[in-house]
């Protein structure tokens, strides 16, 4: 009995010590991965390019706000996390950050005061950035960005998530080693890998996360789970590696067009990806877009991803053309709401109205994105090459949940699509508690 008590007592003491350590031992900041001289000057324009590829602006600018002044609420499952002001303002921004402190934010998710950032900031990706890019980014934020005095709202999550020291545990468990070592054996492919795995942090949406810590299941293409599809809110971020995925079926040019302009002959981006294209990808040099496309193609996996097209397509077009009042509800709703643009063959119009036949958002295992588009509509991003925000209006105001479910099920099973049915409950979850 005494022994047991002693053991428990010892464990409690160790626990307290560890806890105190977790809370009070200062964070070790990762050292620079390359020894650049203090006088190192990044090439002109490099910092802005890095900031664009890393898409800092998308999160650190509030709607209608000044660039990089923060304030945007990122709605995490734990509550709203507010992006900080990263302009060089000394009072409310990062004007007082040294290079080492700045690097620690990118690599370790640790602020100047030693507190931990929530991993809504993609530091698990940014910690693979090269020292050259860190330097360029630092110079850009310190010298080129206009300081804005504006205090971003404080993030206040509920207990226990407001105990930021807990993130330290998460970091220990989840962070990959810092730095990027080329491993693809080809300069172009390695550039693509660097962008996808580090700078453009594509992986943070497109890689599945484990159920326990929500950490990504893989940090580079040597992991079989890497880029095999994730979920952002209700939006599926498609599997990019399965041999039947659109990313693998499309040509490099078609994939590149989608990234650079937000649309290609078959599809348009929507949801979070529309923001990534609008704020970041459209401004990448053509060579970077080509590198990303080549890299994605190079990491194809010999398996099907769950949206395998039917060998023999369903006779949907003929069925719709009959315009029979006896058609099932989903088909009738399609004729009345969708057919004007997407047409009976489900092929829409090249570059303008997306294909529904074979569209990864339509056939995704998680139907939340499709339901969201039907309810709320969607808009393509405005890009230099394709400036029009081609938009689909929402139909949530006129379709009930069971109707949306019937319609979504119809498009998921028509033409060559063969995805599971959508239920009224699925729709209710996306629409939210306020609606029917």
């Amino acid at each position, binding site marked *: 009995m005494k022994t047991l008590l002693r053991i428990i007592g010892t464990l409690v003491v160790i626990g307290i010590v560890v806890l105190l350590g977790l809370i009070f031992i200062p964070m070790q900041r990762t050292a620079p991965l390359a020894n650049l001289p203090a006088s190192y000057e990044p090439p002109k324009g490099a910092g802005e390019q890095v900031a664009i590829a890393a898409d800092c602006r998308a999160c650190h600018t509030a709607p209608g706000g000044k660039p990089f002044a923060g304030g945007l609420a990122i709605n995490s499952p734990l509550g709203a996390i507010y992006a900080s002001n990263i302009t060089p303002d000394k009072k409310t921004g990062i004007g007082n950050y040294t290079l080492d402190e700045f690097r620690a934010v990118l690599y370790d998710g640790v602020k100047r005061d030693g507190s931990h950032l929530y991993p809504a900031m993609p530091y698990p990706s940014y910690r693979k950035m090269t020292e050259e890019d860190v330097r360029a980014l630092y110079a850009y934020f310190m010298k080129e960005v206009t300081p804005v005095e504006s205090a971003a709202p404080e993030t206040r999550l509920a207990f226990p998530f407001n105990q930021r020291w807990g993130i330290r545990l998460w970091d220990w468990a989840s962070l990959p080693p810092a730095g990027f070592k080329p491993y693809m054996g080809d300069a172009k492919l390695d550039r693509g890998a660097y962008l996808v795995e580090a700078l453009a942090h594509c992986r943070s949406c497109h890689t599945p996360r484990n159920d326990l810590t929500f950490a990504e299941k893989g940090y580079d293409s040597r992991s079989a789970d890497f880029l095999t599809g994730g979920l952002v809110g209700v939006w599926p971020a498609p599997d990019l590696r399965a041999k039947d995925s659109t990313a693998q079926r499309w040509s490099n040019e078609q994939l590149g067009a989608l990234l650079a302009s937000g649309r290609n002959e078959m599809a348009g981006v929507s949801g979070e990806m529309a923001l990534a294209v609008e704020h970041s990808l459209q401004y990448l040099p053509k060579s970077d877009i080509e590198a990303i496309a080549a890299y994605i193609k190079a990491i194809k996996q010999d398996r099907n991803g769950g949206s395998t097209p039917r060998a023999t397509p369903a006779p949907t077009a003929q069925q719709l053309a009959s315009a029979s009042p006896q058609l099932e509800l989903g088909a009738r709703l399609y004729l*009345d*709401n969708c057919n*004007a*643009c997407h*047409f009976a063959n489900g092929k*829409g*119009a*090249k*570059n*303008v*109205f997306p294909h529904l036949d074979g569209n990864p958002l339509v056939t995704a295992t998680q139907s939340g994105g499709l339901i969201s588009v039907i309810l709320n*509509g969607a*808009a393509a991003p*405005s890009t*230099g*090459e*394709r*400036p*029009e*925000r*081609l*938009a*689909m*209006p929402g139909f949530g105001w*006129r379709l009930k949940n069971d109707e949306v479910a019937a319609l979504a099920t119809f498009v998921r099973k028509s033409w060559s699509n063969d995805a599971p049915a959508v239920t009224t409950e699925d729709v209710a979850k996306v629409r939210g508690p306020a609606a029917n």
Partner: protein
Amino acid sequence: MARQEKKTDAVIVGLGWTGAILGMELANAGLQVLALERGEDRDTVPDFAYPKMIDELKYGVRLGLMQRPADSTLTIRHSAQDTALPYRSLGSFLPGNGVGGAGVHWNGHTWRALPEELRLKSYVTEKFGANVIPEGMTIEDWGVTYDELEPHYDRFEYLCGISGQAGNLGGQTHAGGNPFEGPRKRGYPLPPLPTLLNGKMFGDAAKAMGYHPFPLPSANLSDAYTNEYGMQLGPCNFCGFCERFGCINYSKSSPQTCVLGALKRKPNFSYRTRSEVIRVELSQDRKTATGVTYIDAKGEEVFQPADLVVLAAYQFHNVHLMLLSGIGKPYAPDTGEGVVGKNYAYQMTGGTSLFFKDVNFNPFVGAGSSATVIDDFSVNQVDFGKKGFIGGSYISSGQFNGQPIRSMALPPGTPAWGAGWKKGIKEWYGHSMSISSHGSNMSYRDCYLDLDPTYRGKYGQPMLRLTFDWKPNDIRMTQFMRSKIEPIAKSMNPTNWASGYKGDGAHYDVRPYQTTHTVGGAIMGVDPTRSAVNRYLQTWDVHNVFVMGASAFPQNLQYNPTGTVGALAYWSARAIREDYLKNPRPLM
């Protein structure tokens, strides 16, 4: 005291077709450009979103997208002996409102003028002698030739993605197109729309009589298209909601679908809505404008200084603003002197309805520009000396829509209400088609615009006054077209048919819709005593004011004006960019 805004390089009054084109051209030239639009902002989504736009009562009958007469209108009379009264209920023509202007709610007929039309006075004089021009007719040459405008027509057609069949490529006639059109350097960007049953029946009948049918050049697109600005349009699905409606699915060319998405990305372009310009302000010597004064959404008066002023509003408003601002000498019909307000003209139209008991036209399948046309009686085909009129028409059969309230043609003798009307509707809906003439209207000494001495608008300014009536020359023209259309109609063996053409003594009636193709009042030319703007659309007296649009037409074409309005905008924009900006001065 008006609030003053920060000066801009160029201010554009009105953000419709010409405002959008000039906005893009001037922004591309590096200017800081501001557009002021009196109406609301509008975009495909949410403003034209399916299915709310598909509402004939709201938009087709109650005219939801149009100018409200209570906000802005003009007074109308037939002659100088009459008292003009305000146009209080929209009928004859429908001025647009809001971003996109009338470019939102048009049908999409996109024509080029004939080479002869652009030098009409010279053509008539050279070919038939000056004495065929009747007393009081004041037709003019435009001061710009077809060859000069050709690249700009081409640019506008490729901006829009016009779907059509060329009939004259570089002087070579091509079967299936209009053999009487001016030569074009290349074909249309897209193939024509598919032909509907009425078009086929009319085309077959016309061909059998030796005429030359072709598909109407259409801004309802036959396929997906991307234009020079990267703007994207989709294929038309023949929903039949074009005229009076905004297109639900990006398939009708408009400022929204063709320009504005790209223009709004430009950091040196901005626009303000609910900002109604009431005056162009002039410098002390009245040789230049200093900017414009507008009323903002709160009703506050604002002075917007600018180095360059582009009037890009609807034809009436351009002329009205010139008169209110003292730009150019107002036209006086008694002396024939003065230029601003001169040569107002309209469009002469007529038509024959055909009813076929056993033919079902499925009119709910329609498009604003779905039509088969013959141009065998165009301005350059008619012998004015022999026929006793100057002018011409294109003749067409279109199926634009099958809307249930207004598209219910009934044979003569059917009761207009009650059980008999219901029976007629049941019997005849979907069983009719029409053949129409769309013709020129000449300009006359006593058809003009000036300021009304009595009525004032909501900002206390005199209203614009229109004095206009039909003239025997143009009635003879439309009767001539009737004499050509009715034999075609009869050859098609309809169960019944009825004609509607203006006859001797007809007066202009503002109630029934005719067309919104009002022209003139700020006409272009090469003689400052006979035109309000020069051949580059620059006002003669105030060199930094340019005036776009159909107000520049010295008389009306036989065609719908938008193609020419677009071409003139690019033509003027080029002169501004390549010549005027380098050395601001009168260009002529």
